[in-house]
């Protein structure tokens, strides 16, 4: 961190600082405006929205859109499912990622680079949708809870991040523990994990976001409406299928498209909770800045 208490800055630096703040102010506006817009539309009168009168502040307060969402037949189940998948999936990810990254961070572990290669390959090759589906099916994972939390539990990218963090923990700490008779596993759980809260929080948060926003695995691997996560409901509201004119009779379903307010309300309801977690975890982010370099 730069020391803010410097005595006086030369004029050049002060001008520079002003420019920095202006650029960042514009950036923040651009970043936040769409959120304000979504929120405003969701609580505005649909008619005002349709007339294009809502650009920043809500017009004609109307909570109908939220009521419609709450009265949705499978809304609660879907919400509960999403929370469950996110919580369990995140815990699994943290477990597998940390236990994999720890040996890889140790220079004396000779197999380290070979194992790392195995992970790096997966960043570039994958089986494709149907083969993956068939593989999961042969493992009897289709339409189970596990298919939502296990397959994504380990990504090469997270392992690389975690390994870099571990490498920055001074080796002296584990050596002295070794001398005191601690096993490698004890060193991992008693020394490394407690020191790694920032990176655990960072990876945990982004994993949680990924699971929360994911729909594709639910679409492919789940058959039971009562197991669907929130994003499946959101998609049915937000995405209108395009029409093939030779597909006659497609009428009834297409015209009942939701209002803009309902779409935005569904966005707010489904996105807000995961965003609310962020401030609680942000303090760890500051610490995770200690990561130094991600290069191992």
């Amino acid at each position: 961190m730069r020391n803010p208490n410097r005595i006086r800055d030369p004029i050049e630096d002060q001008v520079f600082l002003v420019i920095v703040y202006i650029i960042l102010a514009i950036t923040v506006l651009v970043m936040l405006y769409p959120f304000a817009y979504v929120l405003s539309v969701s609580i505005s009168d649909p008619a005002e929205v349709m007339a294009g009168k809502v650009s920043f502040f809500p017009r004609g307060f109307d909570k109908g859109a939220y009521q419609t969402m709450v009265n949705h037949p499978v809304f609660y189940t879907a919400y509960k499912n999403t929370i469950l998948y996110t919580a369990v999936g995140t815990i699994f990810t943290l477990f597998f990622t940390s236990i994999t990254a720890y040996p890889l961070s140790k220079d004396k572990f000779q197999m380290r680079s070979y194992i790392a290669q195995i992970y790096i390959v997966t960043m570039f090759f994958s089986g494709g949708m149907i083969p993956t589906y068939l593989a999961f099916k042969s493992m009897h994972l289709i339409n189970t809870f596990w298919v939502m939390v296990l397959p994504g539990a380990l990504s090469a990218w997270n392992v690389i991040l975690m390994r870099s963090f571990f490498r920055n923990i001074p080796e002296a700490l584990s050596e002295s523990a070794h001398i005191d008779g601690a096993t490698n596993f004890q060193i991992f759980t008693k020394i490394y994990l407690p020191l790694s809260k920032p990176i655990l929080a960072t990876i945990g948060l982004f994993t949680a976001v990924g699971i929360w926003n994911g729909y594709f695995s639910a679409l492919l691997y789940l058959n039971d409406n009562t197991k669907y996560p929130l994003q499946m409901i959101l998609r049915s509201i937000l995405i209108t299928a395009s029409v093939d004119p030779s597909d006659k009779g497609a009428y009834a379903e297409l015209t009942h498209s939701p209002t803009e307010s309902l779409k935005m309300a569904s966005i707010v309801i489904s996105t807000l909770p995961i965003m609310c977690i962020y401030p609680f975890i942000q303090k760890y982010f500051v610490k995770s800045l200690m990561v130094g370099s991600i290069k191992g």
Partner: protein
Amino acid sequence: MATTAEKISKMSIFSKFLYDWKCNRSFLLMSIPGLIIIALFAYYPMVGVLTAFQDYSLFKGMSGSEWIGFDNFRRFFEDPNFFRIVKNTFLLGLYNLLWSFPAPIVLALLINEMVHPRIKRFVQTATYLPYFISVVVIVGIMKSMFSDAGIVNDMLAAVDADPIQFFNESGFFRSMYIGSDIWQGVGYSSILYLAAITGIDTEMYDAAKIDGCSRFKQIFHITLPSMRPTIITLFILAVGSIVSVGFEKILLMYSPATYDVADVISTYVYRKGIFDQDYGFSSAIGLFNSVVSIIFLLGANYFSKKFLDEGLW
């Protein structure tokens, strides 16, 4: 000690394994859960890549489908869309790299210059927020804001400019695709760079200040050079993924009027695989895409090692 380490590093993989089995057994054991997961969920499905060489039929399965060698690849190279989708994929990836790659570095540098911790934290929070929303939502918001009656065209009207059909003009497709990518990812990506910056020894700045080096100049003389390893690592990875532009966002954004710039390899694979059930063909294109990514990655790594002395491995 150094000589022992050297000796070990020259050993064959098998002896290395034996060495670890003797001295680092717990490390080997700890590696097992991860390897199981990756074997089951990443490598096992990868066997399906072989369908690229088959006239694959779902009901015959891989063992029953006919092997047809490189026919699927030949069909792809002879496909009238081949040149266009490869070009579009490459250009979209390249432009995305050109704009999306530097953006988080600049943001990290700017955030680092801030002197008020609370505002700094606020700015960080604000820039991370978009990362939390899904692609469907992003495209939904864009369609709403850039539509005929949307806020952007309202603003254009206010300055007497003609309204623009943003989603119908090929000229805007790439800008909107890349712009929204930056909007969503810049805050998240900047975390890694900020991390690199905090690792820099503050004494270096103090020394520079005594030498009369302005803050602006310090960026180029201290901060950026210190971020070099991080930048290079991420750059190599980004180059490797140049040809893997995601299809979901494009599917949501494109229309016939923008096919000439928007139709890419992955959208084509998707259409072929899902709507035409041409699985072998679709795997072949996917494999082609992966091989090109690997070539890019190896190439970037090679040049980086050769000219910058830094590489991924």
